[in-house]
């Protein structure tokens, strides 16, 4: 399904650095909290003072295992820490402790749905690996004349670097992948996902080629810290590369930065010896050994994964894949759905309402699934009033509006039947107060029907002449006249009798 741009196929691979949400650094006992005074959270080990040595944080390993399980990867029984040697002021030891030949997480995949116009397609991106490493410090270039200030607070923060195969074929796919990955790491709680603070940083390797040709030379766009910029940067880069090629220029491998102000990418000044990192196993750190029992324990303690939960929604509630995937975009949404469908016993209707009325309102305004004005019990009660023919769908929408706009009536404890019963009383009260109850008394309806027929002889003629459409017009008139209270099924029945 790879769509071409000016006859070129776009090829994108990702390297994502996810900061792991540990209390302490990966190799030291210094805190990892963001935003402290410069160098107050860099201990002797983080500053690489002479004589200091690294000691591994179990919390970082545990999170790597959780990630491996979340993406169906192999968690290595034995992985090796290696030194990546290069000089940079924010790299205190002159080398970064990372993993090279044998990473802790091997393989795996990330699947997601992706909307192209009206179509929704299913996409799977293969992971090459995810490895543990330490973050570097920060260089501040402002307000030091001709100099930079180095803050090592971030140095030693645990990172999981997640590397994909070059499986993405458009910026849409790339962004959808990044969002899915972001969902996974935040869902399982190994990363806070804060992109502004740099907790989730994406590098995109972008190249273009004629279909069927060998992979083109890639340029790496560094530190994309918002999904919006990600899309802009990749689109710009793709256009740039195609223009270069069309103008007969070859693409040279480079690392580029995206400038949100100009919307352009520009090549970074590359360290001339960047190519030669002289990796070798870190003699300060014996091999990391992870027993199967540990992996099993983590598995049992892990929250149900979105992927697994979606599958359950399909089997347990009979939802279509698409519904199940959308409802598992966040833990809160999934919980709201389950509570609602349990309250009304109508999973598909609950899903429709949540993906319809509820999300429509979420897109506008700052309400989220965590602070919805309409509780699951209320929505459940509402749906049960539709299914028992008390109100029509259109009436239900009016009730929903009232509930949404009067959040004081929330039922908090919607898991209790008591909560549900209370929700029912609220819903019923609104139905009565606004006179939305469906009109099931046939004599009253008949009166309205006769009125409408009398007032619309033209439609009647057309219908009798065999134009079925004309009936819809009449039904609409009748519903309108009944202020939406008439039962459409009953109306149809009655019309067929009278005109049949």
């Amino acid at each position, binding site marked *: 399904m790879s769509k071409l741009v000016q006859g070129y196929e776009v090829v994108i691979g990702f390297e994502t650095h996810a900061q792991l949400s540990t209390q302490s650094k990966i190799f030291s006992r210094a805190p990892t909290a963001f935003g402290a005074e410069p160098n107050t959270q860099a201990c002797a080990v983080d500053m*690489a003072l002479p004589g200091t040595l690294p*000691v591994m944080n179990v919390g970082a390993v545990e999170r790597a295992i959780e990630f491996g399980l979340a993406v169906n990867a192999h968690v290595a029984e034995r992985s090796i820490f290696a030194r990546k040697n290069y000089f940079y002021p924010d790299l205190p030891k002159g080398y970064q402790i990372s993993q090279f030949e044998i990473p802790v997480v091997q393989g795996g995949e990330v699947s997601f749905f992706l909307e192209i116009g009206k179509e929704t397609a299913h996409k799977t991106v293969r992971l090459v690996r995810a490895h543990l490493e330490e973050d570097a410090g920060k260089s501040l270039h402002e307000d030091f004349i001709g100099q930079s200030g180095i803050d090592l607070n971030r140095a030693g923060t645990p990172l999981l670097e997640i590397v994909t195969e070059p499986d993405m074929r458009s910026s849409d796919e790339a962004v959808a992948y990044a969002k899915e990955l972001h969902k996974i790491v935040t869902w399982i709680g190994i990363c806070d996902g804060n992109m502004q603070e740099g907790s989730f940083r994406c590098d995109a390797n972008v190249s273009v080629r004629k279909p069927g040709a060998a992979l083109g030379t890639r340029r790496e766009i560094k530190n994309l810290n918002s999904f919006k910029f990600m899309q802009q940067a990749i689109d710009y880069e793709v256009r740039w590369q195609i223009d270069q090629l069309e103008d007969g220029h070859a693409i040279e491998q480079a690392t580029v930065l995206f400038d949100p102000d100009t919307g352009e990418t520009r090549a970074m000044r590359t360290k001339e010896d960047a190519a030669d990192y002289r990796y070798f196993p870190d003699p300060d750190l014996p091999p990391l050994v992870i027993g199967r029992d540990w992996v099993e324990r983590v598995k049992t303690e892990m929250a149900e994964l979105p992927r697994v939960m979606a599958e359950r929604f399909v089997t347990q509630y009979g939802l279509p894949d698409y519904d199940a995937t959308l409802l598992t975009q966040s833990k809160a949404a999934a919980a709201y759905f389950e509570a609602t469908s349990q309250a009304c016993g109508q999973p598909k209707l609950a899903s429709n309402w949540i993906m319809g009325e509820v999300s429509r309102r979420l897109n506008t305004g700052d309400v989220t699934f965590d602070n919805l004005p309409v509780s699951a019990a209320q929505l459940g009660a509402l749906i049960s009033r539709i299914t028992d023919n008390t109100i029509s769908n259109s009436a239900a929408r009016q009730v929903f509006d009232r509930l949404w706009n009067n959040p004081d009536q929330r039922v908090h404890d919607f898991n209790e039947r008591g909560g549900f019963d209370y929700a029912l009383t609220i819903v019923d009260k609104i139905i009565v107060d606004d006179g939305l109850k469906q009109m099931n008394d046939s004599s009253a309806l008949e009166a309205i029907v006769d009125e409408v027929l009398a007032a619309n002889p033209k439609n009647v003629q057309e219908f009798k002449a065999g134009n079925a459409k004309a009936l819809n017009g009449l039904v609409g008139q009748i519903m309108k006249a009944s202020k939406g209270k008439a039962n459409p099924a009953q109306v149809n029945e009655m019309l067929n009798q009278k005109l049949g």
Partner: protein
Amino acid sequence: MTDLHTLSVKALAESLRSRQVSAVEVATRFLARTGGNPNNAFLDIDSEVTLAQARASDAKLADGTAGPLEGVPVAHKDVFVTRDFATTAGSKILNGYRSPFDATVVQRLRSAGMVSLGKLNCDEFAMGSSNENSAYGAVTNPWDTTRVPGGSSGGSAAAVAAGLTPAATGTDTGGSIRQPAAFCGITGIKPTYGRASRYGMIAYASSLDQAGPMARSAEDCALLLSAMCGPDLDRDSTSLDVPAENFSAKLDNSLAGVRVGIPKEFFGDGLASDVRSAIDTALTQLQDLGAKLVPISLPRTELSIPVYYIIAPAEASSNLSRFDGVKFGHRTQDYTDLGDMYKKTRAEGFGEEVKRRIMTGAYVLSHGYYDAYYLQAQKIRRMIADDFQRAFAECDVIAGPVAPTVAWTLGNNANDPLADYLADIFTLPASLAGLPGMSLPVGFGTGHMPVGMQLIGNYLQEAQLLNVAHQYQMNTDFHLQHPAGV
């Protein structure tokens, strides 16, 4: 007590415990001897600090909370970082550096009661076999000041031999405790890799560096080693999780039936005849004590030179990258930009031998050479370790020379670093395998220069090495002899 400075650690500890002498008296006496810095052995001395520690020790001796070595002086090789003394690792790049913490080994000896006299000269970053690579001048050998004391723990060996301290700490990466101990006629032991914490030991080659004590006798070394060793699980990931031992309690076993392996490769043409005859005599003395000599083979002994001089510089090139003029230590005065600052700072801060090893190390790790050099060296390192295990199936300890010759004269190898490398041949194998090894004085060679015998044991068999050495020293007096004027 007139001859305090010739007393053993054991004797000093006893006279301090029995209050015949106070820690302040002892410290004062030794501080006096360091005046004028004989043999250029010390790099930093601060009598205030030393006397304060001595007073604290006297208080403990008084109130009965004294540690086993309370009040006994010690001096530390300058690769151990210390809060109260400057730490330079013998390098200009760390001139005047003050560590915010003490090395674990320093801490442990202090909590055992030892009073620190200061910091000892050494080859820059422990890279050398003659102590001529110190940025702060060479150390001379107390037995003949025209000769080298050995290296890299040359200051430690010279200080003990000259009676400037009853004991010292040293570090051994390829022989840096054993060889200077041999050259200066004292006793020193490098324990099994991982026995002593490396935290606070400025790293040269992380997979080889090991701390150990240097003193006159095996008995004294046992006292210090017992205090130095033990797990440091929170600070050093390579520290072995094996309980500290009281080595002093294990010195009295007879040598009857002990199988002493004699590797034929240690007795080839390269071995000087004066050294050889001293060793041969010592081996017969061991036989007289009941030991059984067993011929063994360590076939890759010669290969240990290239293997070591690939692995150690590789690790060093990376370990020394942190010395970049950003966070601590020397920074060049004039530079045009960041890259220039790095290059000038490091060019000015490091000595020639250190630069050479950084270059060699960076080269063997660089793109296209890793497999041929570093990886191949690691494979041979495994074969060397396996050779030892085969040998230990036939013997309990291995004995041989520490070095092919006695201490050479200063400047002898100045323009021939390779000659220094080759002289490490007998100490490198045990280092590569991570085995414990020690050196004890067993006689004198040309120019009445001391000869040291090396004992190598299997992993964690330090007690056995110390026992063999102690039994030998109970029947000989080489460890009690002093250079003229001491």
